[in-house]
């Protein structure tokens, strides 16, 4: 059992898989000797060498094109897109090529690849380096989307993502990189598509993802002090989606709150809300409420960024107000 930071857990999880399988190779900008701009690949270059941990030019289309072409011919590449905002410069390869080619070819090709990327705000990096793009990926058929909320989950979900025969977008909340948790000894492999119930309470169900999970948890703790006992669900994986757990936990309390970092419109929370409204309508005791970043680009200033992203305080207030109305 080791205490690892989220960023250490990335390298730890990658190393576990690279030791096991020589077809796992990594490419990205500054991931080699430099260990990644977020230090998510520290030590891998030293252990696995420059052929398996390969620095690239600033050519995101080439990075992902290379990952795709390699995946369809026998490798299991792990590509890094440094900031998830940069998916916009290579979205064609992700959304049009990697996601669709298996279906278009009637199953002739597979894409066992992982694209890791630093996601989300909180670091005062401004609108082009702080986006939460999980909904960009979720809306494209053919992509799996995994968003861990703690170091423990990082290791097991990374292993599951790398072993998965399909393309996985693996989003690492930048705000969580310094957070720590326990990682068990030995090989750790988790399951994609399994949400986790972090806390159970009868009054409402908070459904959260990534960096919003610790906030939802903290809000639930505060709410408990006020006598409101909430269930907290960590979604962990948007595709595949553990609708069973979500439907069960929302039905049990009759009230659902999503806690989303992505801007308001067409977030994953809207999808979950629509699933619950369609399939568990008669179990609902009141409106489903989405707590999201407003539909604005993220501001850079600390004071403004803190107002934009859902805070513990905002979650608490919203839940209290909604349950009392």
């Amino acid at each position: 059992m080791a205490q690892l930071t989220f960023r250490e857990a990335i390298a730890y999880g990658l190393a576990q898989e690279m030791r096991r399988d020589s077809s796992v190779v990594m490419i990205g900008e500054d991931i080699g000797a430099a260990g990644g701009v977020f230090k998510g690949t520290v030590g891998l270059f030293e252990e696995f060498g420059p052929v398996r941990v390969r620095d690239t030019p600033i050519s995101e289309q080439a990075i992902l094109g290379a990952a795709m072409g390699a995946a369809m011919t026998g490798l299991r590449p792990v590509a890094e897109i440094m900031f998830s905002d940069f998916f916009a410069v290579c979205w064609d390869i992700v959304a049009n090529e990697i996601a669709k080619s298996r279906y278009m070819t009637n199953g002739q090709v597979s894409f066992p690849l992982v694209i890791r990327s630093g996601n989300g705000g909180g670091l005062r990096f401004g609108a082009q380096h702080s986006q939460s793009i999980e909904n960009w990926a979720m809306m494209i058929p053919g992509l799996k989307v995994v968003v861990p909320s703690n170091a423990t989950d990082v290791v097991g979900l990374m292993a599951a993502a790398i072993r998965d025969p399909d393309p996985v977008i693996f989003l690492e909340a930048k705000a969580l990189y310094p957070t720590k948790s326990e990682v068990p000894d030995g090989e750790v492999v988790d399951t994609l598509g399994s949400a986790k119930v972090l806390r159970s309470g009868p009054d409402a169900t908070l459904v959260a993802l990534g960096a919003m999970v610790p906030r939802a948890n903290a809000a639930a703790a505060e709410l408990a002090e006020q006598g409101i006992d909430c269930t907290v669900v960590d979604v962990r994986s948007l595709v595949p989606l553990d609708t069973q757990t979500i439907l069960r936990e929302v039905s049990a309390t009759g009230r659902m709150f999503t806690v989303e970092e992505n801007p308001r419109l067409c977030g994953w929370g809207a999808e979950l809300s629509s699933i619950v409204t369609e399939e568990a309508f008669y179990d609902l005791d009141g409106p489903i409420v989405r707590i999201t970043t407003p539909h604005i680009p993220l501001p850079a200033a600390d004071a403004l960024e803190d107002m934009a992203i859902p805070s513990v305080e905002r979650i608490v207030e919203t839940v209290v107000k909604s349950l009392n109305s």
Partner: protein
Amino acid sequence: MTSVATDLSAKLELYRVQVALREFERRAHDLFLENLVKGTSHLGLGQEAVAAGFAAAMRPTDWTFATYRGHNHTLARGVPMTPVLAELMGRSNGLMAGKGGSMHLTSVEHGMMGSYAIIGAHLVIACGAAWSAQYRGTDQVAVCFFGDGTTNIGAFHEALNFAAIWKLPVVFVCENNLYMEYTRTSEITAVEHPAADRARAYGLEPIIVDGNDVDAVFDVATTAINRARAGEGPSMIEAKTYRHGGHSRADPGKYRPDEEVKAWLARDPIPMYHARLLAEGASEEQLVAIHHAVMAEVDQATEEAKAGTPPGPELLMKDVWADGGSQWRN
């Protein structure tokens, strides 16, 4: 130019392949007119020598990456006509059971690693296959075909630099047919030779070949593929050619000057090669027999394709994922 393919039987095979591509596409065109081929379709009539010459220079284990104008390249790699035609017709006996259509022909077992319909993407994807060959030490080479218009999109630049710095076993082949859809490429390109004049920007030699001369194509292809296989890195080849028809199904190609079309029709690769083979000792009967055999193949493929059923609902939700399904939830 003297060819590496000095053997007459090899040359007859190059002829046969070109004729097969030609007659297949003619038939596909007829089937459009009967509304049996659905959607869009981009014919490579006139450009057969490029596909035939390269395919002949490739090993079965090598990989082709083509565009939406990919019928020629698919057939040249040995994919049978029936599934290709059936795919164009949206039938369940199509190469991809109708799920991909004309623009996405793929047959992994023939090394045909896909036809790509969004400009530029497959250049970087071909790099990935080449990287995999290099990493696994398999001696495979990726050959990537694209058009003149494609040289102005960003992915072209990223792919060429990437391939060059990693010395990847990939051959980039620009089929310069002078047009991007309805616009003359020279009007929207800063250099005369859209691919060759950019080669040095990636530390590569510019190579231009007569894309209507299958022997010449075979020669440059052989050199470039050998170079790639020897670990000496990528090549960029610009093959000058011309499409006889419009860009796609809907296009009569009227934006092209009559004299230009006439001049290029006079340089049709198939009659030219026909004449050369006669001069080099083939008999007219041999060539006619080849043509007949091809026509029989085309006719049979037409019947077989037509006999295919429309794909049923069981195919709709299949093969999004490697488990064969499309479930995104439990």
